[in-house]
């Protein structure tokens, strides 16, 4: 399987912070519309693409929203104060360039403080180079959300860029969706909204899809950098099969099926026991009468920074594992 850098490069750059996913929704729609039977958008903005098959109804979820910063105040000199949309780290965001939906670019900086590591976001501001409130207001309204400006870097091993979380999951879902010609199962690919603010899109999408099996694709943390907190997940060591995080304990049948497939098909894998965080399957498995659900995670360094880094081999292995999983005749 060759690595489709072009698509990944494009998809991480499309604007789509939580609650304002219209642009990325259009991008993905264009990308997949010729490969699915039906596409619909629900009230919260989830993109739900149906690829018909006769087996189990499976929901595949990758979230298309990004973390970002919402303008809440513009002062007399045109400086913009903001609040976080999702997990924005003051340290990671300090000194970064951000971009609003209309293309306005700004820089994040901070009031003078003694200890930058303890700074809170309410001491920080966005400078868009406006010299007055009026100038600023012409470009940015209160309630507008900006995201980190993108820069996609790759070499033969890895990619690093803002927003692998979770555009790499979307990328894998799209690659699988395009590869699978004759679905064994009845597949609903959901590109979900508002994961970063609390798995909200996946909750409502699961209600309408009403799946029998759930699988989501998202980044996970790493434990393979100098003095990293102990976590048995590293780059280039294979697709990560989740056992638990704070939102789910993966259903044994799904976990065992993924492990067996990886072994049988020679796909490198690692087991993930995450002590924090959560992803869409956390919402899916609680839907209605319960949905056996699992997660394929992409090992990723520096999650929620502007240099989220993942291995190309791992990404390809996640795609392979997903395809094998979706082609399985489930016995549950």
């Amino acid at each position, binding site marked *: 399987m060759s690595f489709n850098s072009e698509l990944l490069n494009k998809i991480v750059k499309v604007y789509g912070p939580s609650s304002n996913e219209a642009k990325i929704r259009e991008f993905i729609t264009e990308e997949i519309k010729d490969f699915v039977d039906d596409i619909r958008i629900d009230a919260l903005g989830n993109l739900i693409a149906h690829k018909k098959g006769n087996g189990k109804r499976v929901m595949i979820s990758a979230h298309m929203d990004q973390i970002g910063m919402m303008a809440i105040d513009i002062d007399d000199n045109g400086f913009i104060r903001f609040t976080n949309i999702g997990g924005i780290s003051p340290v990671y965001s300090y000194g970064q360039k951000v971009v609003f939906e209309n293309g306005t670019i700004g820089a994040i900086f901070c009031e003078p403080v003694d200890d930058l590591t303890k700074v809170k976001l309410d001491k920080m501001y966005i400078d868009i180079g406006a010299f007055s409130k009026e100038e600023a207001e012409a470009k940015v309204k209160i309630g507008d959300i900006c995201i980190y400006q993108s820069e996609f870097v790759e070499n033969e091993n890895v990619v690093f860029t803002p927003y692998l979380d979770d555009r790499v999951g979307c990328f894998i879902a799209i690659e699988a969706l395009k590869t699978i010609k004759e679905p064994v199962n009845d597949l609903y690919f959901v590109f979900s909204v508002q994961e970063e603010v609390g798995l909200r899109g996946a909750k409502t999408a699961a209600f309408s899809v009403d799946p029998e099996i759930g699988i989501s694709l998202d980044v996970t943390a790493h434990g393979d950098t100098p003095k990293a907190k102990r976590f048995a997940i590293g780059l280039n060591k294979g697709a990560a099969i989740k056992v638990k995080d704070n939102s789910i*304990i*993966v259903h044994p049948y799904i976990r065992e099926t993924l492990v067996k497939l990886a072994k049988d098909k020679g796909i490198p894998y690692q087991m993930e026991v995450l002590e924090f965080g959560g992803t869409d399957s956390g919402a899916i498995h609680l839907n209605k009468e319960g949905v056996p659900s699992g997660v394929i995670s992409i090992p990723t360094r520096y999650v929620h920074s502007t240099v989220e880094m993942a291995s190309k081999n791992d990404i390809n292995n996640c795609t392979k594992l997903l395809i094998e999983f979706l082609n399985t005749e489930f016995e549950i």
Partner: protein
Amino acid sequence: MSNLELLKLLSNHNGISGFESTLNEIIIPYFEKYADKVTIDKLGNIIALKKGSSSGESPKIMIAAHMDEIGLMVNDIEENGFLRFTSVGGIDPRTILGQEVIVHGKEDLFGVIGAKPPHLQDANEQNKAIKMKDMTIDIGLDCAKVKELVKIGDSITINRSLIELKNNRVAGKALDDRAGVVAMFECLKELSNLNHEADIYFVATVQEEVSMAGAITSTYRINPDIGIAVDVGFGTTPELDKADSLDLGKGPGITLGGNIHPGLRKKLVSTANEYNIPHQMEITVGPTGTDARAIQITREGIPALVLSIPLRYMHTSVELIDVVDIKHTGKLLAFFIKEISNENLEGLLCY
């Protein structure tokens, strides 16, 4: 089988949240003795239906006691074969140092959670609690052998057999909430001698300790008129405020507060008084830390009740109860159920 024998069996068996299916072989045959139908749902909840006598549409009452227990999980394997681990559910790291454990790998493996010898410690080291991330489990095998038998994500339980103490009191692990499961059986047995109109769904729920996943999904499926969580409550000990705890041997705690339907709760108390069943009051203003939290907000909302079996030393491996309280709890449930009919249900639920 007596309540005590069953409790012993359940307590000594292992099934942390998400890994409960090992309990099916005990619970299902037991339910099947008295219930009309037993099923396992998609997340692993065991649901036993005892049909009521009503010929028309029966009220539906759901009783939930969770069968999962807190525990540990392997999250790394060291080069010397030691296991690193994390917790599933709320565990005080101070309670697991020096414990014997069972690692549920390809086969069950005995191990110990080691501690640094006092001789090697700094002067004030003993004043500091050890963090879970600094502990290891030694299963006495080399790394290659360990990796053959154990994988990351395997569950671990404390190796503990239930012990009998004085005055009907027993101590063991996982009495939270296997004691509740036994109370459901007690209720089921009582009901076989009573006439009740309502259809009763007994649910041994999964994953209460982490997400209430079992109660959320089973309540959706059953969609009962009344949901009752049977769980454990804090037993009185010197370090607890008396007002925040329940006395052992004096019957179940009946919870008051927003999670609870006031009309049903009044009925529950009057039933207890009428049949002379000892009981105590317990208050929680908002959502309780039980399956009832999930039950109340399912679908259009479900009127809920909570009964708590007094239990000391919660979330340790020496949880202590008085078995008499299980009996009282089961009886109270059964007599309350007997009192519910098509005729009075609407009145009881009225605000």
